[in-house]
């Protein structure tokens, strides 16, 4: 069974606050991803990482930042939250080696900025 965890599941926060969304996986996967998804809409890749100390921006420009200090941990930070950041954030991981390995997803964090 896939073990990838996101906390918190739901977060309501005021404008201007700094927030960190946590994502951890216990599968030893090198590659990790952050996607942004508005309700009922498609997924947009905002960040990914090939491994420790590797971070890349995705297809959708985002004001968030990420870090990868440990293989299992890939937190996403917003320095100053705004209402436009309201969305669902999905973390995923996959093996970087091997053919056609799937991505495993966390439960998501639904962020509301008021």
């Amino acid at each position: 069974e896939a073990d990838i965890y996101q906390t918190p599941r739901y977060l309501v926060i005021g404008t201007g606050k700094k927030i960190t969304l946590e994502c951890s996986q216990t599968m030893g996967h090198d590659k990790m991803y952050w996607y942004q998804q508005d309700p009922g809409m498609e997924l947009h890749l905002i960040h990914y990482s090939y491994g420790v100390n590797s971070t890349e921006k995705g297809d959708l420009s985002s004001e968030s930042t990420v870090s990868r200090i440990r293989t299992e941990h890939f937190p996403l930070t917003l320095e100053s939250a705004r209402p436009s950041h309201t969305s669902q954030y999905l973390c995923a991981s996959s093996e970087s080696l091997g053919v056609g390995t799937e991505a495993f997803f966390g439960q998501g964090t639904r962020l509301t900025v008021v």
Partner: protein
Amino acid sequence: AQSVTQLDSQVPVFEEAPVELRCNYSSSVSVYLFWYVQYPNQGLQLLLKYLSGSTLVKGINGFEAEFNKSQTSFHLRKPSVHISDTAEYFCAVSDRRQNFVFGPGTRLSVLP
């Protein structure tokens, strides 16, 4: 560059009826194909994947998909749907570097 098209944004179907969710892709390289399901307020769960070999792939919950290289399609089917199949379904492709591209999703609504 890769892209995925899911032509139907919403598919309503009555319980116990068959359903097909369509997916077409484009890519200049060999790709691997996936179908994921997302229930409300949840992450994505893998239904099935195609890597190579037999073009008919069976997945969980009675779903299956057929890879058609000439039509660059990977349509998802189920012969008899249940109310519990109501969810959002995403088709995806990836390349050898695990760069995933997701389609816009199809909302399947199963009606009693």
